[in-house]
């Protein structure tokens, strides 16, 4: 059986092709969606898609259940925002800086939480996220606090932003695809399933866990920076725990531990919430409910349901059949 031959890689290829198709669909959408506002909505949903994908690398593929994705988004946004504010650098410096800064902080945090799992990890990352937000919103003289920072834009019109986001997402998914079908993919999933077993089989736990954390943080930072430049504005609210809640709901609804899940999750959830806006601001109520229902009854998420409908084998990994005790 050749490299791509065995089921895991076949499944990965399917997921990659599907996400390509989705992104292609998004790319042609502006032909129909001419209204600037709705294009903006989709841009923001793509920002969330990046956070969701990044978080899924940690939670879905490495089993590190971080509650800090939004915080890293905020860090990235502020990295470029503060640079622009103090040295009026543009995005050309700001965005790489954002990736480096958030990546580095991710590396440090990753090392710190190396030995923590489950609730311990969740609590530590939650505290980290809150500290970051509180520090930024209270260091008024440095960050202008709750007031936020104005960030220079990249383009005049909306469409360029739109396609920039599409391309970045494309790049991320492609990179992820090659990462996951390489040995790294095996190691991460092994660590997720049983760290001790992985170690005793020779997998370098420290290295790969830190790697996943750093990568995830860097992607979040990139997303945050792009968002900041698109919105021309960054503020501590980007790091609110509720934002993390939204990211989690997107992944859970879309399908945890799959490549397609976070993508469809983010796009659907966010665009849908725009329609819900017209029936009063019930978005969060509805999504919180959806998340609970999915987590409780459809752990494979929408993507898992799709696979089930098309008669494919069980969606991995979320749908391990519950065996009675």
């Amino acid at each position, binding site marked *: 059986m050749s490299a791509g031959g065995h089921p895991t890689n076949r499944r990965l290829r399917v997921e990659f092709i599907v996400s390509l198709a989705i992104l292609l669909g998004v790319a042609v959408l502006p032909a129909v969606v001419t209204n600037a506002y709705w294009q903006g909505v989709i841009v923001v949903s793509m920002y969330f898609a990046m956070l969701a994908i990044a978080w899924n690398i940690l939670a879905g593929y490495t089993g590190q259940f971080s509650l800090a994705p939004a915080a890293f988004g905020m860090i990235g946004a502020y990295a470029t925002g503060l640079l622009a504010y103090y040295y009026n650098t543009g995005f050309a410096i700001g965005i790489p800086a954002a990736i480096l800064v958030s990546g580095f902080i991710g590396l440090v945090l990753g090392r710190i939480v190396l030995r923590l799992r489950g*609730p311990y990890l969740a609590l530590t990352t939650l505290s980290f996220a809150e*500290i970051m937000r509180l520090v930024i919103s209270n260091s008024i003289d440095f960050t202008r606090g709750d007031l936020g920072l104005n960030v220079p834009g990249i383009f005049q019109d909306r469409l360029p932003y739109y396609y920039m986001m599409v391309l970045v997402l494309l790049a991320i998914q492609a990179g992820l695809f090659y990462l996951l079908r390489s040995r790294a993919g095996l190691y991460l999933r092994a660590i997720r*399933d049983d760290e001790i077993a992985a170690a005793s089989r020779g997998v370098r736990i420290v290295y790969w866990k830190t790697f996943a954390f750093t990568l995830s943080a860097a992607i979040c930072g990139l997303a945050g920076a792009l968002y900041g430049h698109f919105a021309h504005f960054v503020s501590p609210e980007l790091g609110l725990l509720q934002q993390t809640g939204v990211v989690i709901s997107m992944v859970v609804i879309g399908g945890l531990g799959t490549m397609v899940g976070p993508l469809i999750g983010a796009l659907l959830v966010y665009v849908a919430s725009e329609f819900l806006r017209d029936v009063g601001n019930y978005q969060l109520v509805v999504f919180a409910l959806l998340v609970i229902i999915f987590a409780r009854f459809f752990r494979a998420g929408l993507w898992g349901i799709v696979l089930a409908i098309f008669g494919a084998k069980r969606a991995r990994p979320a749908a391990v059949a519950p065996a009675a005790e």
Partner: protein
Amino acid sequence: MLTLDLLINGLIIGVFYALMAIGLSLIFGILKVVNFAHGEFYMVGAYAYTLSALALGISPWIALPFALLVGLLLGLVVERLLMRPLYSGYTSWGVMRDEYAVIVTFALSIFLINIVDKVVGPYAFKGPALIGISRITIGPIAISGHRLIAAIVAIVVIIAVALIIRYSFWGRQIQAVSQNRLGASLAGIDTAKASAIVFSLAGGLAAVSGALLANIFNPTPDVGVFPAIKSYVIVVLGGMGSVPGSIVASLVLGVLESFGGVYISYQYRDTFGLFILILFLLFRPQGLFGEKAREV
């Protein structure tokens, strides 16, 4: 006398922290999960107390037990609907178990905040005082009558709970389950019932704490977020799952914030606890992972 002031204020705040943290700690002990909706139990309690007293005009002394009741029920319902899967028939979960717990409680918290915001409305309400006196002065210490009474009630409740856990029939069963779920179930203890009791109790305690503070921190739908984060810190510092530990940690945190707010930095005082939490996990993780070596 600033020092004394700060000490007293810190201790009192600490007592209220403890009221919340105990429940969180019990839940962790018995289910090994963190309830991220704990702050919303607090919030619901605060509203139950304030609204029942303001709308129905009933005495705060009736509204208080009412809030407790609401909390108990909420905890029970949540356990039945959402926590059951954690220990009934999902052996193949592996890490999904932790993920499920975090996701569901996190979502529950967002749900409760927003549903209350929509149903009751976002306005702040000041809960009625348990006692009319707006200021009692004992030597250099000034304290509102309500804060004093509330603190006393809180202490009484905490002691009562401690005794129940320690000596009552179900209290012991709960201890057994949190020490070794499997063992306990083999010994014929109804672990499901124990979990239900713990969750319900935790909900009740958080609700009471919310009710007691409704007069001091006028409730809004997001009022629970802060105390919740505090109690996460406390539960970690106190050693996850240890009730006495979390009581001590609560008092320590309360005093620390009180003094730190003056002598270190007021602006950043809410980050102190969080820093300590991380430092603790960083330098004394074995405190949390006593059982780790045995896994092999």
